[in-house]
């Protein structure tokens, strides 16, 4: 027994492990080269009969050899296990293109999506989202907004009236009463938007609905000018319709703003009326107890349905109001 012989055992073991074709063969090879009867094991056991000097030197040879054999076994085991695993896993292959989802496909209504998007945009600008009732006092919906009874401006809006008529109660024709409620209960500076459901007695057709949604904005602060209105709307338009959109203000008339304007956007090659806006009429501010020597304000409003239809190329209002799942599902969460 000499170190050369031991090296031979190592070589034999390494060769045997390397040539093992599967884990079973490797097991036999392990028993043959590392088992109790293996030469290295026998040699190891015989160390006790050697002199202390021989024991020390030869013991190290044997120990090193055992480590080499173990290492060879380890890498052979890993290699063969890997092969086995791959084979097994290959057999377990499935068609992962099979339709996996079984849950119904849900989604938010596109009006909710656009309302959330607009709210988020304005919250980032420091505006709060104000809300109010849909069935509303006529004084808040009309009079306080400088729309007196019998003024032609009231006939501009076909109002749903609630019985008894003496109550003056209406289904709000605009979300502007929310602006009045806010101004009556809060001190400036006021920065709000008021998205919500509104009502006008229009027959349902491709572009009109008796029940629809608006978003209005109101700012009352020191030194607010029409330039601030324009800047806010330019920013808003670009957020909604892309950086390339062009806006235009046109003189118009609303009883609650003076000066008043229509905001048009140039989108997909044509001018589209988007909404109305203007500087809050001092009469409206005075009715709400806001000192017009100190504060000025602007307001704007537009239809959510219209915004949605223009931006998403929706051509029929029926799709928005009928609740057909096939329509809503297209929008998912809108992100």
């Amino acid at each position: 027994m000499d170190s050369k012989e031991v090296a031979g055992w190592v070589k034999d073991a390494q060769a045997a492990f390397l040539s093992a074709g599967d884990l079973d063969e490797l097991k036999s090879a392990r028993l043959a080269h590392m088992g109790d009867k293996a030469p290295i094991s026998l040699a190891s056991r015989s160390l006790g009969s050697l002199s202390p000097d021989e024991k020390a030197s030869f013991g190290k040879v044997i120990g090193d050899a055992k480590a080499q054999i173990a290492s060879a076994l380890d890498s052979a085991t890993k290699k063969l296990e890997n092969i086995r695993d791959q084979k097994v896993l290959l057999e377990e292959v499935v068609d992962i293109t099979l339709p996996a989802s079984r849950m119904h496909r849900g989604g938010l209504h596109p009006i909710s999506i656009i309302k959330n998007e607009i709210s988020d945009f304005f919250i980032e600008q420091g505006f709060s989202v104000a809300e109010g009732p849909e069935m509303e006092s006529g004084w808040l919906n009309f009079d306080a907004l400088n729309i007196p009874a019998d003024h032609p401006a009231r006939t501009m809006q076909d109002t749903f009236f609630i019985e008894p008529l003496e109550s003056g109660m209406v289904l709000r024709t605009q979300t502007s009463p929310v602006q009045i409620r806010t101004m009556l209960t809060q001190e400036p500076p006021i920065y709000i938007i008021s998205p919500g459901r509104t009502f006008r007695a229009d027959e349902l057709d491709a572009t009109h609905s008796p029940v629809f949604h608006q978003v209005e904005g109101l700012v009352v602060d020191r030194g607010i000018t029409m330039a601030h209105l324009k800047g806010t709307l330019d920013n808003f338009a670009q957020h909604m319709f892309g950086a390339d959109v062009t806006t235009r203000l046109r003189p118009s008339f609303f009883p609650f703003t003076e000066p008043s304007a229509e905001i048009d956007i140039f989108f997909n090659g044509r001018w589209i009326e988007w909404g109305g806006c203007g500087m809050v009429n001092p009469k409206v501010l005075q009715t709400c107890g806001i000192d017009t020597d100190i504060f000025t304000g602007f307001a704007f409003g537009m239809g959510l349905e219209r915004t949605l239809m223009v931006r998403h190329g929706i051509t029929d209002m029926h799709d928005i109001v009928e609740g057909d799942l096939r329509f809503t599902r297209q929008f998912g969460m809108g992100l």
Partner: protein
Amino acid sequence: MRAPLSWLREFAAIPESISAQAISDAFIRVGFEVEEIITQGADLTGSLVVAKVLAIEELTGNKKPIRYVELDCGEKQSRFVICGATNFAVGDLVVAALPGAILPGNFAISARETYGKTSNGMICSSRELGLGEDHSGIIVLPANSLNVGTDAIEALEINDVIFDIAVNPDRGYALSIRGLSREIAGALNVKFVDPVEALKKLEFKKSGNGVTPVLEDGASVFYLRTLANYKADALTPLWMSRRIEKMGMRSISLAVDITNYVMLELGQPLHAFDRSKIKGSLRIGRVKKDQKFTTLDGQERNISPQDLMVMDDNGPLALAGTMGGLESEITNSTTELALEAVRFDPIAIAKNSRRHKLSTEASRRLERQVDSSLAEFASARFAQLLIDLGGASHVDSQHAGEPRFAPIVKLDPAYVSQILGFSITPEKIREILTVIGCDVDKEFNVDPPSWRWDLTQPADFVEEVARMIGYDAIPSLLPPRPKHASLTWSQKRIRVISSALAARGLSEVQTFPFTSDAIIESMGYVNERAKTYRIANPMSEDFPVLRTHLIPGLAAVASRNIGRGAKDFAIFEVGSIFRNSKDLVAAISPELDKKPSKAKIDEIFGSVPVQHLHLGAILVGKVEDTSWRGSSRSYEWSDAIAMAQEMLQLCNLEFTVVRSDFAPWHPGRCAELLIDGKAVAHAGELHPRVVEQFSLPARSVAFVINLSALPQSPLVRGEGVGAMPPALQDVALIVDEKVSAASVESALRKGAGELLESIVLFDRYDKMGDGKISLAYSLTFRASDRTLTGAEIAQVREAAVAQAVKDCGAILRTA
């Protein structure tokens, strides 16, 4: 309001070089929306002449009447043409298109053989020439109005551009050529001549006693001019009838045409009465009692003291400012006329118009405020034209009342710049205000013109300056902004719940909040859930009231989707409901222009009924889409209850569950979820009657959460969870089948005490007989500071069971 360019040019020096599009852009820039530019005559070329009908030969044996007409077209020889119209006679002047002419629609005229004759041209209708929609007959020109052979394109002013303009309600003055001419002249910076200036110089001599005006109510000034010797057969000159037609109206008779013409030209509605029908003086006021009155459209109307009327000693003759009466109308035997021109109170006319659902050219102008001083001059214009064209003579002019004008406003020029956000010099402001007709003194006291009742406060003048400069000049700046804003907790909660439901496969829908008494009744709603508010003017008599619950609307949408082929789905809606919680009080309408008192504001807010926000959902068919794995189970009552509970859990809200008999759910399969003893949600299987009514699949389920009733979520205190091991203990209890699972669980929790971490019902066995069921629970116990000993665990387990025995009559089931 239409505005022919040829007529605008009479008062505004619009150069020929400016295109129709540029004129339209200028109108839009100053606030007049041009809805349409109508170009007449552009697609009309070749020879169009005035011709006289010399002879008519009726050709018989055709399906329709056909005439073979001999025309004098001012040529050496007569021309013969075939014509299908019959509204003309020998001697009439007509318009003939000669061969070579091309009419609108690329319609080439040539000599052709037809009906066995040679037709050498065509007699034209208005529509064939692109002048209007009238195709009921050919154009017949007033006798002797033109020479035969005259170029008709020029004589009829066919080549013209007509702007159709939407006039905002604050600009009544612009419902006239005078007003629009002034605007376009200002917008294009060209000279404007006010036609009223010339009328101010007119004088009429009194030659007899005319009708006396009496003004009792509803107007500031009332002019009445009496004219005699009117030749009722006098014809409207062509230039006038053509202009009236271009404005979209019809020529009727000279006297009526002049009233319309002057209204269109100047903006003042006029009404001409047959003087012989007037008894005594003419009075503007109210009738004393309800009565019948027939307007000249032949309709009998119920007149009441609310209406403003024009009356003589016998009674009403006209619904003031709205429509004349049939009896005093001008007829073809009228020789004496009384012309009324009044500056009516706009609100009185608006009320007349609204009460009688009668919107006329006159009422539309009067309710939008007419020039205060125009009654005098417009009536003078009428007299001038009737004398010139109708041979009439002036008898007498009288008036009652005096014009009232808008007050002078003190304007600080700096205010204009402050509002617009850019600098404008006082000189520029003065120049613009002068262009629109104001007088401005050195101190900037601004006296608005008589036609601008809308200019009452400095802000009104700011708009005038801005629009004449152009809104494009306003810079674009972002305002100073608050540091922070966020959604409120209730707004965030709606988003969280909606998103959670959408992520679970529910689709959000939105329905109209309208319903009917029949639906409310059939759903089984009672008490305050059956009481709602009624719409006075609903879109449909089928849905005249406001909804009290979301389920009917959702069921209808579910039904619609099923009808369109959907089978398995879940939908939800977030929306307001309206319950008649209080009788509506009479409208509270405090004074404007100053803030109402706190008490008054509270009273107004309090007068509006509370409208709760609900979330409702309906789940129909299978829980999952049918797939290659097969078909899943159907939704059942517990799915709806689970979803409602999960939404509350999502909000960290603690609730209890009780069974409820609540419409429109199945009385035995409806859960009520309570927070602090208040019902906040209902869930379960829909009542079979409702399922059937909406043709939903059997056992469809639904839930509704009253979002407005949910309290704010408590701030979560994050308790440390520790790393001690749990101890699991199973217990099976036999209870009476009437005992609810919730009460057993509650008893177990109570008995187990604080060491109990969680409890799960893992089995329910209802086939024991004797009205008994078995409930098997897995209890997890854990202490945060130690591993529980066997003795401790046994003790709490026994305590839990003992409590269930005591509270629910449970018997511990042994293996």
